[in-house]
């Protein structure tokens, strides 16, 4: 086994963990579902049962009926939670406004995140969702599961919660939607003791890190995204559970510049796999692409007739640095000029591969608009090797955190702080030399913030000495 968990993992067998019998799980017939009406009028929601796309309303209704059929002692929160949630949703449509109250501080002992308080502002009308808190469950890296784990979560969540969930939340957690304050600690104990599973981050914590599918099923991944994600999540458990930061902090891991987890757009620290040697070329397969024997781009454009593959039009001319050429049917790449955009590799995955001397680039400061406008991540470390135990990466992360914790204002994301202090000052603080790779262009204004030590003789001058040369 190439990767070992840091702690031994408790094996989960659904046959041992389960709460519900098969009869309880399969209690609703299609006929009953068809005729089923929930206790509230929900005309707009029923409209959303139509159409080909999976209907969340149809799904919610099957859970509502399922809860109706469970015996009283087979669930610990109100039977009607799903029906009340749908009822309130319909009223929100009618009113054009949400009916969830603002926040509310709830959580589990010793943690400052992972649970989000939620209360209805129509508790008399929808009493079963008066408390309807969220629990974020830290997903396994790249969201692979087996049915034993998922079924156990489902039984626990139907018994102690609403049975409603998100697979997955935007940051990556498996999100459990809706339970009472009383059940928060019991759920946390079930998660940790039975499932060997912790909750994720929220508030001014390290948020649950997430990664792409990486080497598990992708030929492009330039480092072990799952392993790095897992290792850092484990290593920074304290930061994940106990808020010590000015604001949220997100770590995301993309295996290559295609960026399938969008780390560049939405993580304070974005790790993107790359290479520093040459793109590997299999010339025979390039010829097969040219001859039309291999479908370009792995068949991603098969739905339309785009004509015969033209390597000039589709690859060489689209190369952003124009570093490719075809000489006597041989593809040449000037790797010194290549910016590793992935286009040629994406178009001809059978013939071209990223280099073998791999690592990652680190970019900092991405965020959504709140507060000072959206920011894309800025390239700070062009290349770093990424091998266990990843001490170089941890050291870098901690330097950045030290700066941010010291200088950042309340609710100031790293990207905003970098803007406020300026990139030169930031680089100096974390001890990196400036490089043209970090910028699109050099500065366009001449307002250089010289420091005293930049200038021979310093800034203390004598006006009398000056006047010896210049009359008043």
């Amino acid at each position, binding site marked *: 086994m190439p990767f070992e*968990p840091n*702690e031994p993992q408790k094996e989960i067998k659904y046959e041992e963990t*389960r709460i519900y019998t098969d009869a309880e799980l399969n209690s609703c017939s299609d006929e009953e579902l068809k005729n089923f009406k929930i206790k509230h009028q929900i005309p707009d929601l029923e*409209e*959303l*049962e*139509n*159409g080909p796309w999976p*209907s969340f309303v*149809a799904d919610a209704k*099957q*859970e509502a009926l399922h809860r109706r059929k469970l015996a009283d002692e087979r669930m610990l929160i109100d039977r009607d939670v799903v029906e009340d949630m749908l009822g309130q*949703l319909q009223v929100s449509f009618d009113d054009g*406004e*949400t009916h*969830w109250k603002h926040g509310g501080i709830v959580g589990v002992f010793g943690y400052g995140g992972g649970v989000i308080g939620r209360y209805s502002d129509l508790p008399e009308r929808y009493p079963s969702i008066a408390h309807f808190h969220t629990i974020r469950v830290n997903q*396994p890296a790249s*969201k*692979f599961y087996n*049915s034993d*784990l998922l*079924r156990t979560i489902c*039984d626990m969540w139907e018994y102690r919660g609403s*049975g*409603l*969930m*998100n*697979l*997955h939340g*935007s940051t990556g957690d498996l999100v459990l*939607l809706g339970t009472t304050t009383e059940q928060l600690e*019991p759920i946390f*104990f079930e998660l940790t*003791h*039975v499932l060997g*599973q*912790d909750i994720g981050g929220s508030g001014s914590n390290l948020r649950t890190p997430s990664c792409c599918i990486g080497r*598990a*099923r992708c*030929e492009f991944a330039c480092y072990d995204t*799952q392993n790095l994600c*897992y290792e850092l999540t484990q290593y920074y458990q304290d930061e994940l559970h106990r808020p010590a930061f000015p604001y949220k902090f997100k770590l995301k891991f993309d295996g290559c510049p*295609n*960026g399938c*987890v*969008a780390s560049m757009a*939405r993580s304070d620290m974005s790790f993107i796999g790359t290479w520093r040697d040459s793109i590997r070329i299999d010339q025979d397969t390039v010829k097969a692409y040219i001859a039309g024997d291999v*479908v370009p781009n792995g068949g*991603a454009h098969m*739905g*339309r007739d785009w004509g015969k593959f033209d390597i000039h039009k589709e690859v060489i001319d*689209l190369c952003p640095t124009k570093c490719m050429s075809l000489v006597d049917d041989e593809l040449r790449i000037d790797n010194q000029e290549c910016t*590793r955009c992935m*286009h040629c590799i994406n178009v001809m*995955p059978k013939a071209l591969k990223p280099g073998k001397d791999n690592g990652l680039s680190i970019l900092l400061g991405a965020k*959504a*608009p*709140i*507060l000072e406008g*959206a920011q894309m991540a800025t390239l700070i470390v062009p290349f770093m090797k990424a091998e266990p135990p990843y001490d170089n990466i941890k050291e870098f992360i901690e330097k950045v955190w030290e700066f941010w914790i010291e200088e950042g204002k309340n609710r100031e994301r790293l990207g905003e702080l970098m803007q406020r202090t300026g990139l030169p000052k930031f680089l100096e603080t974390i001890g990196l030399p400036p490089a043209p790779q970090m910028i699109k262009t050099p500065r366009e204004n001449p307002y250089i913030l010289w420091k005293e030590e930049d200038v021979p003789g310093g800034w203390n001058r004598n006006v009398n000495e000056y006047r010896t040369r210049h009359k008043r």
Partner: protein
Amino acid sequence: MALSLDRLGIYDPKDPLKNRLTDLGPRHFWQYFPPVIQNNYGKWAYHEVLETGILMHVSETGDKIYTVRCGAARFMTVQHVREICDIADQYCDGFVRFTTRNNIEFLVDSVEKLEALKKDLESRKFVSGSYKFPIGGTGAGVTNIVHTQGYIHCHTPATDASSMVKAVSDELFKYFQGMTLPAKVRVSMACCLNMCGAVHCSDIALLGNHRKPPIVDHEVIDKVCEIPLAIAACPVGAISPDKTPEGGKTVKIKKERCMFCGNCYTMCQALPLSDKEGDGVTILAGGKISNRISEPKFSKVVVPWLPNNFPRFSEVVEKVKKILEAYAADANKYERLGDWAERIGWEKFFEKTGLEFTEHLIDDYRLAYDTWRTSTQFKYTAAAWDVSRFAGGIE
């Protein structure tokens, strides 16, 4: 170990620290890889999309893994997840995964299993007729729309998420099930400017947006909020201290300064923004995250506001289709929506999509000047002749 049936389980409220386990982190990923993935980890040689929604990855060892990608509402119930588990048990030795964009992926290691699995998935429908597991979402098409909580579970939304995504996905279904577009199109949805979905780099982004400044709940603001924090929360300095007629502490809002970001409400629950007439949907287009060919870029606002027309959002659907259809008809192979708009010029984007250009689409926030045109390189469209006419340049 069985799940507990006791009301408080194994938690003892008299001694909260007893047997408490903390800082376990997530479960380790390796045990959830099917054997074919464990055996070929890091050895994948290439992949092919065999048909829409079906991927084949081939290893250096000769092993193959077939993936069936299915759309899903990210909001799902335990009953639905159990059905996913049934399928995983029947065809995939119990394994299943989810993608970053909320698709479900079933993985099998032979063509025979693949065919049986496909047939089964296609046959499963909710009683009302919608697919439970529509196969698609690969290659040059529209894959699952990532989104946020909306009215289902959030206190700040300016619109609902699940319903809008369902409405738009129904209408874009043929693009989910076909790979007919010039490149992939990532549609994303966030129900307010907090953007927990980080939709700001999507080919098409649907965004809930408020249009009325907060109302001040003078009676409670001093009790439920830290007033200085609420004042400091405003990025444009529109909130200042004030006194109620009774002499209590409160704030006043310079309404004309408000940019409707809702940050004050995030900090202070006595400053609600949401409003039936005020709230609606902004559409942004042309963003991307991939570094392929061109650099990643932000989406740009192309429709300032549309009403929250629940539950089907007909105006939103119509504009999204206009953008997609103009792009599909005009862009080159491999060209993302934003690259297409930049190549033809944004003036042509508005001409070809038929979207109205209004003053709301011209940036007047920070660094707005960076988006103004400072060259004579433009293309003539009807909008240009209008300006010329108003300026007295032509009859």
